[in-house]
């Protein structure tokens, strides 16, 4: 099994979710994160003091998939999340040694 992980722009989450649903993905887990990278952050002013915030809000998506689906899923995510502007984010794939469904204890593909 593989764990496909993506960092995307928050307002792209809906598009990515729909794309994955169409691609038959049954589930995913998302969380708010903050990203640092080429995309510039912002300067804030507080009572005359300026300071820069390098981090920009992003959303992280984790999707467990069968080995063969990893790359296609990664590509689906990239298509859906792409705006072409700096800061679109990354996708990476990790190998998961085993996966279980808590409710049933099922393992592997059946756990998805």
């Amino acid at each position, binding site marked *: 099994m593989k764990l496909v992980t993506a960092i995307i722009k*928050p*307002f792209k*989450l*809906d598009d990515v979710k729909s794309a994955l649903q169409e691609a038959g993905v049954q589930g995913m887990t998302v969380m*708010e994160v903050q990203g640092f990278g080429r995309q510039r952050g912002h300067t804030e002013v507080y009572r005359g003091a300026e300071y820069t915030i390098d981090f920009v*809000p992003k*959303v992280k998506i984790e999707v467990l998939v069968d080995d063969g689906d990893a790359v296609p899923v990664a590509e689906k995510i990239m298509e859906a999340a792409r705006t072409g502007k700096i800061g679109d984010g990354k996708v990476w794939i990790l190998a998961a040694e085993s996966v279980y469904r808590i409710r049933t204890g099922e393992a592997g593909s059946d756990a998805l």
Partner: protein
Amino acid sequence: MVFDSANLDAGATAWVLTSSALVMFMTPGLAFFYGGMVRGKNMLAMLMQNFFALGLISVIWGFLGYSLAFGGTNPLIGNFDFVGMKDVATMYPDDPTGWFGAFVIPPIVFMAFQMMFAIITPALITGAIADRMKFSAWVWFLGLWSILVYSPVAHWVFSPAGWLFERGALDFAGGTVVHINAGIAALAVVIVIGKRKGWPDRVMPPHSLPWTMIGTGILWFGWFGFNAGSALFADGIAGQAFMNTNMAAATAMLTWLIVEKIKDGHATTLGGASGAVAGLVAITPCAGFVGGVAPFIIGGLAGIVCYLAIGLKKKLGYDDALDVIAVHLVGGILGSVLLGFFADTKINPVVGGNNGVFIDGGSWDLMADQLVAVGATLVFSFAVTFIIIKVLDLVIPGGIRVSEEDEEVGLDLTQHSEVAYSFAERS
């Protein structure tokens, strides 16, 4: 009795109008005082139960409640003289005693001021039933309770025709009518609706105490209208009531924090807020009848007694979620009884020489009346409330309580299809 506008005192009218607005503001204040203490998934439901009282009770008050509370001269219940806003702009209730004859504000201002009390009283109950009642059940309960419990008790105590009023029982701003009444009703409802899922094993800490603190600020602020406005004049008695209100709240905050520090090792923000409210509750019946150091004693005791009363619920095993009983029932009884010690004709001629035990020329007579008033309110309110809620539990399909699953998900989503917070930026 037609109000003679020649008697109108603009200063008193200005003060009671202001006070009515202040008391109205207390209901949102209460909503946030409680709202901050519940879990985030039930925040809006708590706010809504309180705000909805502003809507429903106002309408009921206009069409029926005011008339039932103040109309006519029957000692047990009002009549229909003022039903549907009839004559409320021009007339005071008929009144042989001449009580209303001394008023210097337009009748409709008196009605408005009293309305705000009718609104906040049942709202106090929301703290006890937090996190588990269907909104539909609350709607029915709220309306029935206001008509069947609030109006009668208000009549007994606040109407010059009421049997407790006639007896000589004193209640300046609602120790019995508001706090004991709501507090004992809360107990009845809690018994019927049962414990929150997971209580007491699961900790259910406040989701946002700053809301509770802003609610506390609003309550303290509004309570000046509640108590000092109850003078219905802009005079020294109003001033005394104002001062007593503040001093009782302040002292109770201190004593609550001290006991807390001793028992738990920490003085908490919530403790400070809770103490202040306990003091405000206890001083309510006494506000315009006592003077000197009495407010410090009353408030000081309230802070200690109410704090200790909180321990009861775990012992007795009823889940009074936000301690309405410990603060309003216990605090209300405490204040009503202490008034039997400290009521002073020098402060307010209405005491009519019937001074409290500790005041020169005092006796136990007033105390007797106070105990009757407390007892009568306890029995009547508990009984009728219990019947109302039991009936509703039978009549409403599935009962008054939400399903286990809905309770888990939270009332905001399941009762109102809303969430209190969506900080995550996704659009």
